[in-house]
């Protein structure tokens, strides 16, 4: 008896085989069929989620009922919701070449707010917190006497050198040597030295990340193959 689970399981089985055919044949029609179906389904699901969980509860429902998540909105909050509605309508003009310029306003708004969120998050969340983290690794001189303190100091020093060398590996400023006018601009010896050290740390970091990605990919392959193995008896 074909239950919905079995049918959907078979679809999964088939799609998995079609996609894995890429390993043997590269970009082939079977692979294309699976991926195009996947793109369509993913897009439709995104639309559903966005409508059901963003537009409906955050825009449509509050405008109609005056409540958001069951919390009643003030008149001001309700009126203010007309702003994103207007912005959305302007955004829809992007669909028509003739009026698309009106859509520039909401896009400018999005870009501006997005840039601000980026800057705020990066400054507070990464630059400060990561710098403080690097500093806080250092033990006080009183602790350095102990073995644990010494290890912590070595660790903190490596962290500091690694961070600085990596930062200066990307140093962009350079000068054209007066002696070799034809040559491309080069950085000072000090920066070049730091950069040379930095590339070691960067290569190690990238190596570990690449290995991590590979492990994740292999885990996914293992999961798929185990699914195929488990589902084939059902067929």
């Amino acid at each position, binding site marked *: 008896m074909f239950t919905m689970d079995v049918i959907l399981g078979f679809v999964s089985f088939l799609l998995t085989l079609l996609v894995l055919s890429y390993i043997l044949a590269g970009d082939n029609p079977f692979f294309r069929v699976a991926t195009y179906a996947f793109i*369509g389904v993913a897009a439709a*699901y995104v*639309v559903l989620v966005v409508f059901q969980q963003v537009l409906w509860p955050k825009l449509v429902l509050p405008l109609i009922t005056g409540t958001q998540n069951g919390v009643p909105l003030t008149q001001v909050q309700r009126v203010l919701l007309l702003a994103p509605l207007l912005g959305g309508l302007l955004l829809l003009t992007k669909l028509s070449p003739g009026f698309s310029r009106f859509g520039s306003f*909401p896009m400018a708004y999005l870009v501006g*707010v997005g*840039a601000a969120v980026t800057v705020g998050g990066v400054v507070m969340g990464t630059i400060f917190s990561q710098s403080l983290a690097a500093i806080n690794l250092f033990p006080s001189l009183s602790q350095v006497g102990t073995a644990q303190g010494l290890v912590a100091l070595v660790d903190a020093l490596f962290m500091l050198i690694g961070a600085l060398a*990596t930062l200066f590996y990307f140093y962009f400023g350079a000068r054209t040597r007066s002696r070799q006018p034809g040559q491309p601009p080069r950085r000072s010896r000090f920066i070049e030295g730091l950069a040379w050290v930095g590339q070691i740390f960067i290569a190690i*970091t990238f190596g570990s990340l690449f290995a991590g990605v590979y492990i994740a990919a292999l885990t996914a392959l293992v999961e798929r193959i185990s699914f195929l193995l488990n589902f084939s008896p059902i067929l």
Partner: protein
Amino acid sequence: MKPVATAIAIAFGLIVLLGYFLPLPPLPALRDTFVGWAVILAAIATLIGVINLLAVHTNKISLQQPGNGYSLILIAAFILTLILGLWEILTSPAAPLTRQVVNSIQFPVEASLMGVLAASLAFASIRLLRRRRSLFAILFFVATLVFLVAGSGLFGILNLPGADYLQTALDRLPVFGGRGLLLGVALGSLLTGLRVLVGADRPYGG
């Protein structure tokens, strides 16, 4: 048009930015409101993006471009999923069937694509030293191998003396460079964001 758009981007961006740094009323409230609006606008933009996606593939079909059959599959998959989802939203908001469909189509395809990477990345790392001949490439290659071995847990299994220290060292090593990389990317992101906030980059409304 463009000056007005630029003014909008700068004005709202600065208010939101100040809301981050200065928790003085009414800045935080304004920041939350503006961010909320941006979320709604981004959601509406998603609908436009989907229409763009469909338009591109409809063009392919109407112009009989290569691969138009696949475009037909894409559009059909989209419409069927959309109809099913809308019907379910009206009947049961949890939409279990839609989720099940997604888990039966999107999950296997994406997981398989990730599995395909296992082969592609192995091939790429094999060819790496042929493609690049530099100290950086050699270090990258060696580091990859070492971390693959560490990821396999061999060090722990073989119970080599000092395996714990080795594992700890391997856990720490990427962080040394990683912190510098994170800080560097953060600097780049900061200045790119600021270029928008001062109106130097204006990708909107060309």
